[in-house]
């Protein structure tokens, strides 16, 4: 009980800071920090979504960046066609429509790939999720219409009633509200009967099967929810950067997401948010000192993974402990 309330205190503190500080930065004339916070909050949604399957289901997806990428292109492609014509079926600036596309397509993509990926466990699961993400990556590289690997500029952001995403504060609070909603969704799901089964299958899949649970169906459902949520984050990210390219879904981004979850604390609501905050701040700090910031960052990544070795292994072995049948 004591640790529970301490966790909620940390959660409240972090959320309060995210609600109050960024607008203050903006009013103090430091718009850069609002940008940083927006990026942080959007990445946090993706990390929260990954945490649903990684932290509560033991599924170490190394392909979550693909969902971000698909979500971003679900904003970019309709906007592109609305500006330059053709493909009238999807051409639109309508934010509701774009988000519907982002969530719908990533959900279907998660369903199809999940059926295959979830037949494997442990290291194989990591590798096959990564392989699917790379497939999506190369698909967008080869799509010359949308700039290939040069990417695509989104010249008009998603349009919504009442809010205007060209206003940085509107974009920030849409993202922040979405993060809070994502956290609430994950929190509710993981405490529900469904969540119990999901966590149970992470602990011991064979036990759950012999109790009568078709654990495959439960894990697949979680995977689809997670993918769709991550696709939503991608739609926000597209609106934030207004430039999308296959690089958004490179395997390094998937690795970074995993890092955020594990560093911050897999299996807790606020953990991935803390992990994202740390990631964004560290990235900012290093990249302002040196253009080779990936190197020190890589070393740090390694150190964290080694330092939290048991955590990482625990997650992987949690899903790889039992043989298939």
């Amino acid at each position: 009980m004591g640790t529970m309330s301490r966790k909620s205190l940390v959660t409240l503190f972090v959320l309060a800071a995210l609600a109050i500080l960024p607008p203050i930065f903006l009013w103090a004339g430091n718009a850069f920090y609002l940008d940083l916070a927006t990026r942080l909050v959007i990445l946090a949604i993706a990390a929260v979504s990954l945490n649903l399957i990684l932290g509560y289901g033991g599924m170490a997806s190394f392909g979550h960046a693909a969902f971000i990428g698909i979500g971003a292109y679900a904003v970019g492609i309709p906007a592109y066609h609305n500006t330059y014509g053709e493909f009238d079926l999807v051409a639109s600036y309508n934010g509701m429509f774009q988000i519907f596309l982002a969530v719908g397509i990533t959900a279907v993509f998660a369903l199809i790939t999940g059926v295959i990926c979830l037949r494997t466990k442990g290291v194989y699961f990591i590798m096959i999720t990564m392989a699917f993400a790379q497939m999506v990556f190369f698909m967008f590289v080869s799509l010359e219409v949308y700039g290939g690997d040069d990417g695509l500029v989104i010249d008009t952001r998603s349009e919504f009633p009442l809010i205007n995403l060209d206003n940085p504060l509107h974009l920030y609070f849409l993202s922040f509200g979405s993060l809070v909603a994502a956290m609430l969704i994950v929190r509710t799901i993981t405490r529900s009967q469904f969540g119990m089964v999901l966590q149970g299958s992470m602990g011991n899949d064979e036990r759950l099967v012999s109790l009568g649970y078709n654990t495959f169906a439960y894990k697949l459902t979680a995977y689809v929810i997670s993918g769709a949520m991550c696709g939503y984050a991608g739609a926000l990210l597209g609106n934030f950067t207004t430039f999308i390219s296959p690089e958004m879904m490179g395997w390094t981004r998937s690795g970074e997401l995993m890092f955020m979850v594990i560093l911050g604390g897999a299996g807790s609501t606020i953990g991935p948010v803390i992990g994202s905050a740390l990631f964004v701040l560290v990235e900012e700090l290093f990249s302002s000192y040196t253009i080779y910031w990936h190197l020190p960052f890589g070393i740090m990544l390694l150190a964290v993974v080694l330092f939290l070795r048991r955590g990482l292994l625990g997650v992987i072995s949690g899903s790889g402990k039992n043989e298939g049948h």
Partner: protein
Amino acid sequence: MQPLLKISGLMKSFGGVNATDDVNLEVKKQELHAIIGPNGAGKTTLISQLCGTLKPDAGTIEFEGRNITTIPAYKRAGLGITRSFQITSLLLAMPVLNNVALAVQARDSHSFRFIRAAHKISRIRDAALAALEQVGLQNRASDNTATLSHGEHRQLEIAVALASNAQLMLLDEPMAGLGPNESEKMIELLRELKGTHTILLIEHDMDAVFALADRISVLVYGKIIATGTPDEIRSNDAVRHAYLGEE
């Protein structure tokens, strides 16, 4: 009377090892049927085929007259078959209560319920607590499962089997690694369950087997070499020779 469980011509081999070698066995309703046999005889392999986590190479398994040989494992639980594990396979990261609650929850047609917090559903909670009480673990309900002793883990395995409300319990060496006192407790517990459940008990502890079983089957190198009442088994020459270690 039709047996609750009927195994015919069951075969399973791993490489060259015949772990299950033409096993024929009937378990009657309400009986406690024990299977004894040396290590490596194929007892756990048999259980795994009954609960569906291992596919037999040949033969059939009938439950209540219905052929279940190819039914997936997760569906057999719904038909009324539950198992306990020889090597404790509890959810160590969860509280004790959750281990049992998951078994209670599994009786529902599905658990695709996403909104209500599971621990607030009193129907599940109460049934789980009742099962814990039956094995004497009610005071440990909210403790972390990892902190329980080995003996308590074995008791919890039974509570989970109880909570799943199955007709047929497959218990794989519930007394493995227990001290004399704990064994005594477990025998008492199994004696209580005997009246209400059909039990296929795999056990190494001969005292326990002869005290509890209605019938005993002896498994050696995957083959059942004898089936009978405890007295018949005790006086069976082949069994004494092959297993009980007497000349």
